[in-house]
């Protein structure tokens, strides 16, 4: 019997920590054995098929995102717009979407390109780096600083605040101490942005923060709480996700040199590769939704108030949607992947992420076309958001 699923009991024993490096096989077992089931450990429902996940994403009136209390992230109020539902959510998206449009993000491209080159300059001659620490972590964080109009010296502050929320256990082993630290970090984030609001009100600049303090929502300015609730989301959603995706992409390309050579030979393939690796790797493996009513799907009864996991990673390797789903094909003709979610909550930063990923892949492979994982070493993936927390790479330096 499969270890991943128990079709009789409709249970999923998806041990993320062990599956995180290479979850695709487990996803496919879930899809075939238990496409709608419950986690054996928690009893929480899990929806995996592409068709079902798309349906859930498009029905926020049933599958709600209003769940700030259910997930302890150090927040005092729901993050905006991620943790509120339409129609309220739509008002905020109308305000924020234009600031995250493809056109806007293209304006940031030269700065991101310069950052990528600058980071590589630091370690290029050594012929090795730890990809996560030296490239994947600082690059998106710098992009965020550009966007917000903050100086590069703020990098360490933001990295500390983000880690204090996302992985407090790194600095605090004890569970309770970790949660206390998380709450304390949350307060620090609120205070940081409240200070910034004051600064931009006094002295407006041409940046996102100035936009947030000056823009109008149906004839009124945003409140201080609304602004900090938006900024909290930026820190949580905008930094780690691109870091994780960069790591997953480069780890894949290090392990698959024949695929990497395609990109190096033809830069025109990079966009297709970014999309295909978003599908295949799906670094944000799942999104949660709170049931607003009882739902029976594929014979499984789910109750109002249950917290459902939509397993995006599994949907993205579903044979019913993707032709030869197990092949990684940079020239895939039809790719409706859900790596950025879908429906009303489609990732607000998806155009920023795509630009960062494309530019990073271009610059990296221009500078370092030939690389591999350091012999004797193994990349380490984190559970949840699949960050490759340890990815030692080596390349020939020519000396």
């Amino acid at each position, binding site marked *: 019997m499969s270890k991943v699923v128990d079709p009789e009991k409709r249970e999923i024993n998806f041990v993320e920590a062990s599956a995180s490096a290479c979850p695709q096989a487990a996803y496919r077992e879930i899809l075939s054995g238990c496409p709608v089931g419950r986690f054996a450990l928690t009893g929480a429902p899990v929806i995996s098929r592409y068709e079902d996940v798309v349906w859930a994403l498009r029905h926020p009136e049933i599958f709600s995102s209003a769940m700030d209390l259910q997930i302890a992230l150090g927040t005092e109020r729901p993050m905006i717009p991620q943790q509120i539902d339409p129609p309220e959510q739509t008002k905020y*998206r109308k305000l924020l*979407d234009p600031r995250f*449009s*493809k056109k806007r993000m293209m304006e940031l491209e030269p700065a991101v390109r310069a950052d990528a080159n600058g980071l590589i300059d630091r370690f290029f001659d050594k012929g090795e780096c730890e990809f996560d620490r030296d490239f994947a972590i600082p690059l998106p964080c710098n992009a965020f600083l550009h966007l917000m109009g903050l100086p590069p010296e703020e990098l360490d502050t933001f990295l500390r605040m983000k880690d204090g929320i996302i992985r407090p256990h790194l600095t605090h082993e004890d569970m309770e101490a970790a949660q206390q630290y998380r709450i304390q970090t949350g307060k620090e984030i609120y205070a940081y942005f409240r200070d910034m609001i004051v600064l931009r009100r006094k002295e407006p600049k041409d940046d996102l923060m100035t936009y947030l303090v000056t823009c109008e929502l149906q004839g009124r300015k945003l409140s201080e709480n609304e602004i900090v609730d938006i900024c909290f989301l930026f820190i949580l959603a905008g930094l780690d996700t691109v870091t994780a995706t960069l790591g997953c992409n480069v780890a894949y390309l290090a392990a698959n040199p024949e695929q990497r050579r395609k990109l190096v030979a033809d830069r025109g393939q990079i966009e297709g590769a970014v999309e295909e690796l978003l599908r295949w790797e799906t670094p944000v493996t799942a999104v949660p939704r709170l049931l607003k009513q009882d739902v029976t799907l594929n014979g499984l009864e789910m109750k109002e108030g249950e917290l459902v996991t939509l397993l995006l990673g599994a949907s993205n390797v579903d044979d019913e949607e993707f032709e030869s789903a197990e092949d990684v094909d940079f020239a895939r*003709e039809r790719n*409706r992947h859900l790596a*950025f979610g*879908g429906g*009303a909550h489609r990732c607000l930063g998806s155009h920023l992420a795509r630009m960062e990923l494309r530019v990073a892949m271009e610059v990296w492979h221009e500078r370092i076309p030939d690389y591999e994982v350091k012999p004797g070493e193994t990349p380490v993936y984190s559970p949840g958001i699949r960050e490759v927390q340890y990815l030692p790479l080596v390349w020939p330096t020519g000396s």
Partner: protein
Amino acid sequence: MRVRVDSAACVGHGRCYEIAPEIFEDDERGHCVITREKVPPAHQDAARRAEANCPEQAIQLLTGDD
């Protein structure tokens, strides 16, 4: 070939104007706007790929009348 978009379904993934900029562009929010409802033969392949890469299935191609 003609192309249509279901504006209520579009949420601004932006795959269409990335893949087929001759047919689609983005509005202020990054949602899809059709610039050429009648797709010239040279761009029909791109229009097909745009349709095949829309996660919301918001794009519809109507063939047979060209």
